[in-house]
């Protein structure tokens, strides 16, 4: 199957995890642990393979992204009369490819890891079902071609995090309740974020008339497309504010380009034979537990088996295939390169239209956006949209106001934390920002806000991480901090740096989480081992699946928290693989030279520095300096708390028997650790900047490979000349890192952290204040509770009891209506009813008796009297009849 048709496989990416989940949900209880696990893993690995295929296609062809329509469920929200048409559409372009790789790669590893980790859990199949569903939603989010489909993935991921965080809700008593509370909190905070995205979506729709990113056949980065097809360079005009002049230079230059791949693939009968044959039968069924009557492509089942056979063993994701794609193919016409083939700009996608509007000069009526009664300039509308998006990102990627849910989310099982709260889900926010980079390009003020929030979050999270005892909570705050880095990078306009850091962070943070998972696993084992020693071996390992689980709450009956670093120590010798891989992760995170973290973090710092120096606007310079300062401090914190963690967990001697007898985790868990460790070292080399002393050109690695790859998706990338390797800045970063580690070593080295379960910093008077603040997480939770949760509850109770029930229901209904009605009734009854009506009736009766008394006398009984009366009557009648005659007579 030649590479052109790989993008066709995109719908499979959604379908396969859905099918896996479907099987696990319905037949999970029947399948054994191993089988359902394998199904989950095959689904994940299959998607990974497809992602690799797509990546290789895009990498080789310099092809700009293409829009793929699903075979079956093409239209979703369609009201023809008013032009509302939001289809299920996929967007395959380098940005998607990178995210696909990250999500599926890390996802597959975590699937494998959780085979081991969740071993023995009675809801094993359900866990895998949820993981697959999560993968499906995340991929839906990543590959969508319009905001609404993205939003479906966005909320879907939110729901899956709700289910996964609350996975252990059925633990008895308070622990179960804490889990479900954490899940509910996560969901609600996410919903607050979703509120922002929803509002942004409304405004986008009313501004552009459509929500689609790129219409089929539209090119994202016109300048790149021209260069690649050597159709003459873009009109190089000063891109001071970073306005991508991409779209306005519609000069026509005819030249061939082999981008027929990108043409719309609506044509159902795509002629890809072999594995893509599944395309015919596939259906996009992204709803989890989809037992809807829609044809769930039973045929799919057999297809996937065939696939896995090929990739079963090596699941080596075949390193980023650098090979140069062939340049052959017929000439590309300029028209379909620079979007002029679309009749009017309104046919373009959202980003194309933005470019057009921004090209109009300020204040022209064209730029006026009409909102019902409101009319705003396009730029202000864009600004509001970006702010709303930022609110959404803050909710999802745990930035300053809405990050509170992430630490609590650690209540979920560790693979969940690793997958969702380190690698994939939390990056969705950053992905959204990167995806809508065209918006950000045109509103520097908005980017400033983003940068500030990002960097402040990084610093704040780093600081809090210093004071945490729970191994996962430290990592959680470190994730928040690193996300802060990414958001800051996006704020600076360094999208590539942000994406690169996202990728590397996903790898080594997943590594750290899985490492911590295996540590916790080990400690638990140790604890049980020790604890169970007393009452016979039987109790030990296999039975009672749930207690085997990582009960990680302080006041669990055994009052032993396997996750609390104070109960660990000296595990290096016990769990070598975990130790070493963990070290790799720590070095990568700390940004020691030549580890992944170093390259990506340095990239961000370099961009910040560059922005500080050459930023055209005052804003940019200022932004640059602030961000650089904050990020450097944050980097320092990062290195410090990571080393603190390594010290407390691995070095020194074990502080509890559990730690002493913690066994190394099973193969299922260690292999992914090794793989991740390998990658956390090598993935950095993807984006080596120019002229780096050793590595530029090392082993045939071109510099800025990653950036070149992304150029076709992100317009502003081609404009900025790629920065040279900024040695002084790099040195500074390295120095900070090493000094932080040294400091941390000095404080926590050699069992110093042991004294009476109190952190040395806490002990040391000068830093006590600082440390307790960090430990208490800057009192965020308390603030939240007092400012939002409590008033909300009290007000709701007040509204219900007082306003609704007592006022509306009782007072208004009973006293006003009913009382009024009753009183009116009484009023009417007494005077009116008795007095008047009865009076009249009785009166008539009396009158009749009176009269009849008189008349009775007439009946004498004598016939003659009757005769007289009769005659009297006759005479009377006659006279009456004659009356008219008389009158006539009298009258005439």
């Amino acid at each position: 199957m030649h590479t052109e048709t790989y993008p066709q496989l995109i719908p499979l990416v959604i379908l396969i995890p859905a099918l896996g989940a479907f099987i696990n949900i319905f037949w999970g209880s029947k399948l054994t642990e191993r089988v359902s696990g394998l199904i989950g893993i095959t689904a994940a690995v299959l998607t990974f393979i497809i992602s690799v295929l797509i990546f290789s296609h895009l990498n080789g062809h310099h092809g700009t992204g293409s829009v793929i329509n699903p075979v079956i469920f093409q239209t979703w929200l369609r009201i023809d009369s008013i032009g509302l048409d939001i289809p299920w559409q996929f967007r395959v372009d380098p940005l998607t490819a990178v995210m696909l790789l990250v999500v599926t790669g890390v996802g597959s590893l975590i699937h494998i890891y959780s085979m081991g980790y969740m071993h023995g859990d009675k809801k094993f199949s359900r866990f895998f079902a949820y993981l697959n569903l999560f993968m499906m939603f995340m991929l839906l989010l990543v590959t969508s071609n319009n905001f609404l489909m993205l939003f479906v993935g966005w909320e879907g991921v939110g729901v899956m995090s709700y289910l996964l965080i609350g996975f252990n809700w059925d633990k008895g008593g308070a622990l179960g309740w804490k889990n479900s509370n954490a899940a509910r909190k996560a969901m609600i905070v996410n919903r607050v974020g979703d509120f922002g995205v929803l509002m942004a979506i409304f405004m986008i729709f009313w501004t552009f008339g459509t929500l689609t990113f790129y219409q089929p056949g539209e090119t994202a980065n016109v300048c790149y497309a021209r260069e690649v097809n050597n159709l003459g360079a873009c009109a190089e005009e000063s891109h001071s504010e970073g306005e991508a002049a991409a779209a306005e230079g519609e000069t026509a230059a005819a030249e061939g380009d082999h981008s027929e791949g990108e043409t719309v693939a609506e044509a159902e009968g795509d002629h890809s034979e072999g594995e893509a044959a599944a395309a015919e039968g596939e259906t996009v069924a992204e709803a989890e537990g989809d037992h809807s009557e829609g044809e769930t492509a039973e045929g799919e089942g057999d297809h996937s088996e065939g696939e896995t056979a090929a990739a079963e063993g090596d699941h080596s994701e075949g390193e980023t295939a650098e090979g140069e794609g062939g340049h052959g193919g017929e000439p590309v016409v300029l028209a379909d390169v620079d979007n002029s083939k679309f009749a009017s700009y309104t046919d373009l996608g959202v980003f194309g239209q933005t470019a057009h509007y921004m090209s109009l000069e300020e204040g022209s009526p064209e730029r006026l956006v009409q909102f019902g009664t409101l009319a705003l300039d396009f730029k202000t509308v864009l600004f509001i949209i970006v702010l709303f998006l930022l609110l959404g990102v803050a909710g999802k990627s745990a930035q300053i106001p809405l990050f509170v849910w992430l630490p609590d989310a650690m209540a979920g099982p560790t693979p969940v934390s690793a997958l969702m709260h380190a690698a994939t889900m939390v990056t969705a926010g950053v992905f959204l920002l990167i995806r809508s980079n065209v918006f950000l390009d045109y509103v520097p003020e908005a980017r400033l806000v983003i940068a500030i929030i990002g960097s402040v979050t990084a610093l704040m999270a780093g600081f809090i991480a210093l004071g945490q005892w729970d191994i996962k909570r430290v990592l959680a705050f470190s994730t928040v901090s690193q996300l802060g880095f990414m958001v800051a990078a996006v704020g600076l306009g360094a999208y590539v740096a942000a994406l690169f850091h996202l990728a590397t962070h996903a790898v080594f943070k997943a590594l750290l989480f899985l490492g911590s998972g295996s540590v916790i696993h080990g400690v638990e084992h140790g604890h049980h081992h020790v604890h169970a020693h007393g009452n016979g071996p039987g109790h030990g390992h296999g039975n009672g699946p749930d207690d085997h689980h990582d009960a990680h709450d302080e006041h669990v009956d055994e009052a032993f928290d396997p996750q609390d670093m104070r109960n660990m120590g000296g595990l290096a010798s016990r769990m070598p693989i975990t130790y070493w891989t963990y070290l790799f992760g720590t070095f990568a995170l700390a940004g020691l030279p030549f580890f992944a973290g170093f390259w990506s973090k340095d990239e961000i710092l370099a961009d910040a520095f560059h922005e500080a120096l050459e930023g055209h606007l005052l804003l940019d310079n200022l932004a640059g300096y602030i961000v650089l300062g904050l990020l450097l401090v944050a980097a320092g914190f990062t290195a410090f708390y990571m080393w603190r963690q390594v010290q407390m967990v691995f070095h020194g001697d074990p502080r509890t028997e559990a730690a002493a007898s913690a066994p190394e985790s099973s193969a299922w868990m260690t292999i992914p650790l090794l793989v991740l460790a390998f990658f956390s070292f090598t993935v950095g080399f993807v984006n080596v900047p120019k002229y780096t002393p050793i590595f530029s050109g090392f082993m045939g690695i071109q510099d800025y490979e990653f950036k070149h790859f992304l150029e076709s998706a992100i317009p502003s990338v081609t404009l900025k000349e790629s920065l040279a390797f900024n040695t002084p800045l790099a040195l500074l970063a390295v120095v900070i890192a090493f000094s932080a580690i040294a400091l941390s070593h000095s404080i926590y080295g050699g069992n110093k952290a042991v004294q009476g379960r109190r952190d040395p910093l806490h002990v040391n008077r000068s830093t006590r204040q600082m440390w307790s603040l960090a430990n208490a997480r800057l009192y965020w939770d308390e603030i939240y509770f007092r400012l939002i949760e409590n008033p909300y509850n009290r007000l709701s109770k007040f509204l219900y009891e007082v306003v609704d029930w007592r006022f509306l229901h009782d007072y208004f209904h009973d006293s006003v209506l009913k009382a009024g009605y009753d009183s009116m009734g009484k009023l009417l009854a007494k005077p009116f009813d008795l007095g008047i009506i009865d009076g009249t009736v009785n009166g008539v009766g009396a009158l009749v008796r009176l009269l009849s008394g008189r008349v009775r006398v007439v009946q004498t009984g004598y016939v003659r009297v009757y005769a007289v009366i009769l005659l009297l009557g006759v005479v009377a009648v006659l006279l009456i009849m004659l009356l008219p005659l008389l009158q006539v007579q009298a009258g005439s």
Partner: protein
Amino acid sequence: MGVDVLLFLVVGALAVGCAIGMLISDNAVHSALFLIANFGCVAFMYLMLDAPFIAMVQIAVYAGAIMVLFLFVIMLLGAEQSHDTTTVTFRWLTGAATILGASLLFALGLPLVIGGFQLPETAGRAPLLRVVNAGVSLVRTQEIAPAEPAAAATADPAATAEAPAAAPAEVVRFSGEVQVTLTGGSLSEPLVLNNVPFGEATDFFDVPAGDYTVQLLRQEDGQIMAAPYPLTLAADSVTTLTLFGEYDFEARKLLKLVPVANSLAQVGNDEGRFILFNAYTPQTLSFIDLGPDQAINTTTRDGATVLLDTVIAADIAFEGAPVTGTYREGTYSLALINSDLEIIHRLDNYTITADTEKTLLLMPDGEQPVPADADPDSGGIQFPAGFTFRSTVLPGLVFDTEPSFGSPLGIGRILFTVYLLPVNLVGLLLLVALVGVIVISRPSGEKQERRANIRRRVSRPLVNVIAQQTGGEVTTETPKLGSGDGS
């Protein structure tokens, strides 16, 4: 003062007297007799009012049957000494009675007084009129000046209109349709009879009685053909207006109208009546029954031929007044003969039905141009041989034989046709009354025993006879009225 008025007064006074007598006399028998006399006077009144049958019945039923019954009962109950008992109640009753009587009189009399004593006189039956167009005439073609309106034609029915002198250019026989207009009388607008065809008659239609003038016009061009002709129609009369041709050239008289009026009187019992017009030949005709041999049989008696067949109607003069004749009903062969006994026209096996009146119009047939050489003043015009005779039998008026007013026949007819139901009901009523009388006056057996001990005080042996029959014991002293010791 007419004799009848005088008669009326006498009998009326007698009646009132008897009535008063009846009221006053205290002996029941006397008052009964007075009543009988009263009935007699009333019967006489009926005779004056053309109600002979009712009078007889009055005498028979009222005076005869009812009063006899009264007398019988009076005698039966011995109630003739109706002496007033002591308990005279209601002293005020007599006063009230008189007042009431007076007011009754007043109430009844009032309308008469107000009405002014005159009642609209009897409205006889509306007169019937029919027009027959036998108009064979010679008409000049050029314009004939219309006759000046017959202002003066009031009294003399046969007033002839002076036509202006215009030389006849060319004589043409006219036998087309005629328009007759009737004006005057109590008609609000003129009665117009359009296109009365030649040789036909219109139907009978009733016209309110009164004096009219008849205007004759030719239908196609509305040319006046005759002078306006005055006509009076009396109630209960049937008038047939016949239009005849007229030949007097010099006088330029064109047409004359001959009204034939005859009363609605019935034809004799089983006889049919004929009315004959001769508009055909100047000779006088007569209408005879040829008898079974269907030929004229004549004998000569003292030199003159004598017609043996029965003559229904004789000497029907040309355009003269119509002649009527009546003949028994049956089928005969009739014939019209002229003065020298030649049969002009035969009507073989012609049936005559009783109580019908037929009109026989003898006319030339069709439209024959009068030869130019016709000699205008040859005295009577001899029609050329080419003429054929046509007799058209016009539909007669069928009279229902009107029985005389008030006769038993009349009443009977009405009673048993229109009032059949009431008669039966009344018959039933009488039957019921009969039964009722028997039941009421029959002394019931058991009631009798129960009251055996009650002395019956009946003075007359007749009473005793009843008592014996009914089982009560016989008493001798006279019954005291009024002091009944009723149980």
